[in-house]
């Protein structure tokens, strides 16, 4: 197939134009993100920071996660291992990122945020991931399952039930998701270590752990050639609860 010089030059020009357009649009997208105006009614509730680990920890991880996301469930084993392998060195902040493609996700996030109000977020978080195959497969909103998990953890059920229908709490969750969207979070789990991002449990394991070790001044661990089989979800990880500040 012969390609004339004119045709070749046209191709080069086309590629240059396309590349320029992409870079221009991408740059514009990144720099034009402005804070959204606060919708009416959301001022009296902001999702509490859900932080595990000491404030003095040198490694500050942020994770945008979805309770109904199977990859997020897989990542729990990795996070438990990280906390275990580097005790006292890791601080993890959980951020809500319910995916719209997951039907019961927002219910789970609402329930979890309501447990955060009672200082029981992390045990409830672990319970939700542990029981994910059950409640995610439900044909109806798994409200009763979520209530049972809360009961099992000794929650004040009056407070819990009232909170479940609080629209302000829902708005607070979506505000956290919007924050993630502005950081171009597109999939869950997405981990941030400073400005570095790791998407999915495999990336976190293969690159994120070494990034953590770099912060801690430790040598890198070689990346396995083939991924190891997915680990089973561990029992509730031993995360130290940090009590939320008062409602604003």
């Amino acid at each position: 197939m012969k390609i004339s010089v004119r045709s070749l030059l046209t191709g080069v020009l086309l590629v240059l134009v396309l590349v320029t357009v992409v870079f221009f649009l991408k740059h514009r997208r990144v720099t034009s993100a402005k804070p959204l105006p606060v919708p009416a009614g959301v001022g009296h509730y902001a999702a509490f920071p859900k932080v595990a680990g000491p404030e003095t920890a040198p490694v500050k991880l942020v994770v945008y996660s979805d309770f109904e996301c199977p990859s997020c469930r897989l990542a729990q084993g990795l996070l438990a291992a990280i906390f275990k392998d580097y005790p006292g060195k890791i601080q993890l902040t959980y951020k809500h990122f319910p995916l719209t493609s997951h039907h019961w996700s927002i219910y789970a996030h609402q329930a979890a945020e309501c447990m955060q109000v009672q200082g029981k977020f992390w045990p409830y978080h672990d319970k939700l991931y542990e029981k994910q195959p059950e409640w995610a497969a439900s044909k109806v909103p798994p409200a009763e399952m979520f209530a049972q998990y809360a009961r099992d953890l000794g929650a004040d059920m009056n407070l819990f039930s009232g909170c479940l229908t609080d629209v302000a709490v829902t708005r607070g969750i979506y505000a956290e998701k919007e924050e993630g969207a502005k950081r171009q979070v597109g999939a869950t789990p997405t981990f941030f270590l400073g400005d570095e991002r790791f998407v999915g449990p495999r990336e976190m394991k293969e690159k994120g752990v070494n990034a953590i070790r770099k912060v801690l001044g430790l040598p890198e661990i070689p990346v396995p050639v083939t991924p190891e089989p997915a680990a089973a979800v561990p029992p509730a990880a031993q995360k130290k609860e940090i009590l939320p500040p008062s409602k604003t």
Partner: protein
Amino acid sequence: MKEKSYKVLFLGRIFVGLIFAYSGFIKLMEPVENFRGAMAAYDVIPSAVIPLLSQVIPWAEFIFGIFLVIGYLPRISAGVLAGLSWSFVILVLITRIATGSLPVNCGCFGEGSLIHLKPLQVVFLDIFNTLIGVKLALTKDHPFGLSSVLK
């Protein structure tokens, strides 16, 4: 090929070109780590090649998708896109055989996309794309395109 008989194939060319141009564009608008993470969800892809593929594939999809739409180097563009389509079909089949499961999201369109398809849905789409792509690649003349103007 006569213009009259090319009309149906032309629609196929536009469809395949637009699908890939959109797919590539969405991936390029997002951080590369998003697509890298989507690729990493397929355990059979070796870690060493993921960084390179995650950079190259979105550009290939976008550029050759646009080329196919405007009819520039249509045979080459169709061949490349047919190759990409078939590669994904093979990837899904191998992943299914090797691991017994598939990632929940195919990762094909980027999470910021309006289109969210599961891997098996994309398999059928990509089989269709492969067939159209191969037909286009084997067709010598492509009227209604830039290449025919540049001749």
